[in-house]
């Protein structure tokens, strides 16, 4: 999967977790852009992403993500 495909799949997961229809989310998006994206829903988001992409992040990985793009690039790298 390339970045576009991963981002599209991430957007679906994000919509379900945050309970937002068609969220406007891009590589530069951060938690500040969404009222619903708080520390608690972020935990649910990470677990949902791990499940959807069949992978598992370490706490160090998660602390290193500063925007959606970081997460997407990490997922692309893991998908190989």
């Amino acid at each position, binding site marked *: 999967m390339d970045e576009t495909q991963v981002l599209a799949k991430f957007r679906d997961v994000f919509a*379900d977790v945050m309970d937002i229809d068609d969220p406007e989310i891009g590589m530069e998006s951060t938690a500040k852009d969404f009222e619903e994206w708080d520390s608690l829903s972020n935990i649910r988001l990470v677990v949902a992403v791990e499940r959807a992409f069949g992978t598992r992040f370490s706490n160090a990985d998660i602390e290193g993500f500063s925007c959606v793009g970081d997460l997407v690039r990490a997922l692309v790298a893991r998908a190989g």
Partner: protein
Amino acid sequence: MHFPTTDPLGLPWLLPAPDDLRAQVRALGGGTDAIAAHALTGLAGHALDLDQLTSVAKLLDKGRARIEPGTLTPLRLAVLMDGTADHLAPAIRASGLRHGLLIDTWVAPYGQALAEATRPGSDLGASGVQMALVASDFRSLGLGRPHVDAGAAEDAVAGALARMEAIVGGLAARKITPVLATVPVPAGGWMGSFDALAPGSPAAMVTEFNVRLAGLARDRGALLFDAARVAALVGHGRWFDDGLWNRSKIPFALDAVPLWADHVARLLGAARGKARKCLVLDLDNTLWGGIIGDDGLEGIKLGQGSSDGEAHLAVQAMALDLKARGVVLAVVSKNEDAAARLPFQKHPEMLLREADIAVFLANWNDKATNIAHVATTLNIGVDALLFLDDNPAERARVRQMLPQVAVPEVPADPSLYPMMVMGSGWFDAVALSDDDLKRAEQYRANAERSVALQQIGDYDDYLASLDMACELSAFDGIGRARIAQLINKSNQFNLTTRRYTEAEVAAAEAEPQVFDLQVRLVDRFGDTGMISVVIARASGEEWLIDTWLMSCRVLGRRVEEAVLASLVQGARAAGAKRLVGEWLPSPKNAMVERHYEKLGFKPAGMIDGGGTRWVLDLADHVQPKLPMALSGDRSFAA
């Protein structure tokens, strides 16, 4: 999220969530119309994952003012948790809908459980909370690290328990019923299998803590939530997620939250009398394999020797085990009556016999109609029924016609039926009273009584022929569990539908201004057990009747007149002049709207919400002759 069909994490006894669930939630939440209880319970009746539960809970928040509770019972619950609970509270609230409750939650700040329960002037004390879920974690109880020294292990367990005792004491002082959660046993080991023999291993300490916690709950009238068993059901390897704990103090895997929350909700529902009372069974391919009308007695599959035969036998064993603890059994089947009864009478391997079935309806009517008839015959609501049927079309039809009936999904393999029925939690209990044990016998005796009436004809002669003995007594420790159960279960013959916990009942006993009454009835057909409860409060020359309820099993037996006689004589002895009664309407208690009028009370005005107030001048009351012998310390019998 997709789980294999029998994975408990996926709540497989519920229908899968519809694809457009979020849109449905949004549609209900938008606009300004009232939100009907059945729309909410319809949504929550599906197997929802954590995101979906969260979105339903959001609807409860946003639409709270527009919700018409209907038959949902409101409950204010505090969540006192070691670790993060903010994601658990919404899941409990959404799951509560599935078990008849409209829950509001109050979550203690992180790490503040003990302080909130015990500190004078804490926010919890002022929150109006009725119950508090106290869920500990082995890591914060100090049971996560092993002790080589047995004495140190004992100290650790005793210390953890002392913390729980302090919380229970603080809650009791605030009149909040504690719901104590057992602690899931840690997955990690220390010395392998030897952990089970070493008192200082975390596994052994947590196991010992749980045993003592159950004792504490029993001694203090608290509810016990067996979270350890839920975790064991899932498997500790999947239950715990150390990464989540380290990152956010999330106590267990997010995938397990829906199952955990449903178990919390079913327990709270059972405590509020929402558990199901009657198991309605289909016959063909449910109680036996094959179709009795086509295959005949020799052709149906039942009993040892075939896998399906053993599976159906296990369904029957489950039904009998439920009956043994007070669940009533009924049969609803599309069959000729004679053919349907044949296996019960003649099949050597049948565990169930006709005498086990309180209502047996085998005919060609619509099943929903028959199921409604079962409820009428037993004098219980359709929301007290659970219907088990192998046929998906029949299940769908009953869900559509009678959405209040619990209808578990079952997979094709009958071996899995018992797990789905019992796993659903709709039969969960919070106490087992002597009356539960006698209930099946009572319903059978009721059937005999109606035959007796047909034979005798005149109603007064009939009542006299019953040889009734009525015992009227003050509340006591022996009756307390059943008193609390009646207070929380009775809906129809219940003047005010006020619910009290066992702890509150105990408190009422001790109050000098309270006149409390428990009533038992025996007749020549059997012991109907405790069937009526009254709580009245003296205030100057008036006695206000706070609670008056009666089991519908003894309707028309003039028990209410015996109760009134006790009240009148008690009030006169205390120097009172008047009895004041109230009828507060609920969705189910229309049958007692004219209760006080029938007993000779005079109207004394309206109460907000459509209720009525009634007064009886004690000087006016003339005691009628009753067709029963009276006894007990509040019978005032000569």
